[in-house]
């Protein structure tokens, strides 16, 4: 096997053009999914089964099916519903970009909700009792004690989720989008040099992952500042 290093380098600038879209898909679905995950995690830990069960089913469904399948269902499936087609949102929902965002967001929500649940349940009960004994309201106990501590506990797993979502965004290429992988695929179909082009794409993903890792490292250092003796 021999690689054409020059071709790898040559194709890089073109592949970099896909970075903008990859990053957009990543950040938008990450932000939306994380917000929704907070709500879902709260439902999930509710003692009321009418709240926790739907959350459990949701998480089961989205963790238990491939994201590829989810993207396909959203992309091909939404149009099947007349209600969707007639809604004022249809021009948007028809866009592959928003289909991808919806599918990724639903997926991130499920995984992140589980991560946050672990963090929330990892908070020492004694601290919450101390909060109660000081007269802090349930809201203040949650926002001032549970959340900051749960966030610290959740960071490592959340970092993994960010990286795995980054790689997951490659699925957008399947529904006609020119993200990093999408661009790579079109170059491959022109050059018939899959090794070089996909290596070039891999390098781009590695660089993006490195950025995420640095961010996670920084966040960990920040949230662990009180643990340094």
């Amino acid at each position, binding site marked *: 096997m021999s690689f054409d290093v020059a071709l790898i380098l040559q194709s890089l600038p073109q592949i970099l053009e896909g970075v903008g879209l990859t990053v957009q898909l990543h950040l938008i679905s990450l932000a939306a999914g994380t917000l929704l995950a907070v709500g879902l995690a709260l439902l999930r830990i509710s003692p009321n089964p009418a709240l926790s069960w739907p959350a459990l089913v949701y998480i089961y469904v989205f963790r238990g099916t491939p994201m590829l399948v989810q993207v396909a269902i959203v992309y091909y499936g939404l149009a099947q519903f007349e209600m969707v087609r007639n809604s004022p949102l249809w021009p948007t929902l028809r866009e592959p970009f928003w289909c991808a965002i919806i599918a990724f967001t639903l997926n991130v929500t499920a995984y992140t909700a589980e991560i946050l649940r672990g963090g929330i349940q990892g908070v020492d009960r004694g*601290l919450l*009792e*101390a909060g109660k*004994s000081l*007269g802090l309201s349930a809201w203040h106990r949650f926002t001032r004690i549970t959340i900051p*501590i749960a966030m610290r506990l959740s960071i490592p797993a959340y970092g993994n989720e960010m990286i795995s979502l980054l790689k997951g965004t490659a699925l957008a290429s399947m529904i006609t989008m020119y993200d990093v992988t999408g661009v790579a695929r079109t170059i491959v179909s022109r050059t018939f040099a899959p090794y070089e082009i996909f290596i070039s794409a891999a390098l781009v993903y590695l660089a993006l992952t490195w950025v995420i890792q640095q961010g996670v490292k920084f966040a960990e250092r920040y949230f662990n500042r*009180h643990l340094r*003796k």
Partner: protein
Amino acid sequence: MAASEADPIILAEKVTKSFGSFRALAGVDLVVRRGQKIVVCGPSGSGKSTLIRCINRLEEHDGGRIVVGGIELTAAVKDIDAVRSEVGMVFQQFNLFPHLTVIENLMLAPRLVRKMSKPEARELAMHYLERVHIPEQAAKYPIQLSGGQQQRVAIARSLCMKPKIMLFDEPTSALDPEMIKEVLDVMGELAAEGMTMIVVTHEMGFARRVADLVVFMDKGEIVEMAPPSVFFANPTNERTKVFLSQILTH
């Protein structure tokens, strides 16, 4: 809060509490008057923690009555947080908020519950840190302090709410021996200032010096209750005698 000096600030009548089928409190009667110091002792599992945790409703009793500062604790008490803010509690495990500095630990509840301004809360916090003799630790995180210092911070944190009653659940049990005294000294000073206190502890020296009444619990009941002079010299109950002989000899 209750009007007259003679009114009990805490009243417990026939209080029961079960965990599943296990009876942790089997009908406890206790009257605490303003300024009184009660030391509670008894074997492990006798219900000491459960009793004081019922007084600020960290546990809900399931029978009898508990009245704190004139307010009966029931499921219908709308503002349990308001009752709790008048009752300080110090835990065996300190339970300082690990993500906040010492001074932030102290300022949190005054800011959020008492709606104090930051400078006001800071001043209050420094005042109580001085009272527990560690103003110089204000900017540190709890993990950077010794156990004895952490427990004194926990006491100061409770005091910042200006509670009418302080509950202590084995405050020195998690401490190395050389740190027990510094915490007991702070508690002794608090007692001398007239604080109403219920202290679960096996520090019998503290009980002799500070307590108005020593309560002995066994199997979810108060078996014996007497001033320390009587309690230690002439315990009437067999179980008390056995317990005292064990605890005083080791």
